[in-house]
């Protein structure tokens, strides 16, 4: 028991250290190492936050999907605690993606917002997982909240590609990805910086997820303990 706690603590310290170090390196690289974009200027550097955050948001919602299936299959609240944690982080990162995107769009597209396919589907995605968090908050019974939100975690994620394509057929303007092309236009320094930023942001996500899941677990355990105590007191009386 004690050794596993110590081991868990050592692993957490390692994770936090790695997150801090890699994030610092990524930050230094995006300021000093990556060249300034000739056309877009310094604004382009927000791209090293924007793209990794978008990746983490999708990763977080994918983790919600996996944990939702896991919960419905096993009925273990540990799955649900992780789904809860990941959904919250996903909403946070989606919010940041929308904000960083707007900050970039104002000088480059000369508008904060446009109803382009990628922007629109990201906004709808944000609404789906805000609804997920609201559903949890509005369902008083924990077991029922876990079950309902697991269903929404599955339906919502299945809906993501459908929304994406339907909005894309509707209209699109977003720049095509310049990274995953046969002959990359972006210079290698930019790509390396992006890769390091992706790793850094994924580590940030992992740290948040571990801490938040542990917090949710502690909350669940406290609730269970309180319920048990109330039950015992009632049976003595």
């Amino acid at each position, binding site marked *: 028991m004690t050794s596993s706690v110590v081991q868990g603590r050592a692993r957490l310290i390692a994770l936090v250290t790695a997150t801090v170090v890699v994030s610092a390196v990524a930050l230094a690289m995006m300021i000093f190492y990556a060249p300034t974009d000739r056309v877009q200027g310094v604004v382009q550097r927000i791209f090293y936050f924007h793209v990794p955050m978008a990746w983490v948001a999708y990763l977080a919602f994918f983790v919600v999907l996996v944990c939702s299936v896991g919960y419905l299959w096993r009925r273990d609240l540990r799955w649900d605690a992780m789904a809860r944690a990941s959904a919250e982080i996903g909403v946070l990162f989606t919010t940041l993606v929308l904000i960083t995107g707007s900050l970039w769009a104002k000088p480059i597209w000369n508008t904060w917002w446009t109803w382009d396919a990628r922007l629109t589907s990201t906004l*709808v995605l944000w*609404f*789906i997982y805000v609804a997920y968090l609201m*559903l949890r908050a509005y*369902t008083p019974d924990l077991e029922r909240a876990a079950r309902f939100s697991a269903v*929404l975690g599955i339906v919502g994620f299945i*809906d993501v590609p459908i929304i994406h394509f339907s909005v894309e057929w*509707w209209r699109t303007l977003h720049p095509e990805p310049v990274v995953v092309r046969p002959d990359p236009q972006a210079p290698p320094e930019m790509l390396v910086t992006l890769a390091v930023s992706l790793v850094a942001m994924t580590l940030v996500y992992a740290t948040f997820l571990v801490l938040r899941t542990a917090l949710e677990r502690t909350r669940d355990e406290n609730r269970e303990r309180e319920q048990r105590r109330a039950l015992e007191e009632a049976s003595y009386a």
Partner: protein
Amino acid sequence: MQDSNTNSGQGLRTADGADPSVLVFGRQVYAVLAKDLLLEVRTKDALTAMLVFSLLALVTFNFALDLRPEVMSAVGPGVLWVALVFGSTLGLARTFAAERDHGTLEGLLMAPLDRSALYLAKLLANLIIISAAATVSVPAFAVLFDVAVDIPAVLGTLLLGAVGVAAVGTLFSAMASHTRAREVMLPILLFPILVPILIGVVQATGLALGSPTARDMPWLSLLVAFDGIYVAVGALVFDFVLQE
């Protein structure tokens, strides 16, 4: 899921030992559907709510957007569908609210009834009520705004849209009926998920009305595909919503 399957199979198995599962399933769907429609015919709760709300929304849009005939081909489809979809949520919210208020939900859950049959029956009841309301509000839309609407074509599009709305709406109304502030939860759950359906029906109607902004895509086929996905996913996960 497994349990309810075997239960229903044994409960309704025919004397010669054959297992006409499709027949049993059909009979279960019919029984619940007939009950819900009978209830609706007697009370007309959902139908009245949806119809009056949709018409009221059309009138409100008229003032809010100053809908003159020359702008109708561009914004008409959107006005019509927002009115219909918002109206539908009122009826959808009643899917399980009535069962809960009358305490009949437990009875339904204990009955030897396949959960997918229950889902399908509730979905069909919603679909029929939405379509019934729309057969009045679509002609009303055409008359009020003097739009040359090909009514059968629009009603066909409507049916495809309504399948998706009913599929997702039935699933979510079962969840929303157990939450605090359930009137609030249903539209918040429903609208983001239904974005593809709304795009599909608005664009398809736009093409039919010769709207300049409509994209030329096979929207009707896409709607059929969306409906298929929503109904299939809904039937698969509905069981989890009702496990008490």
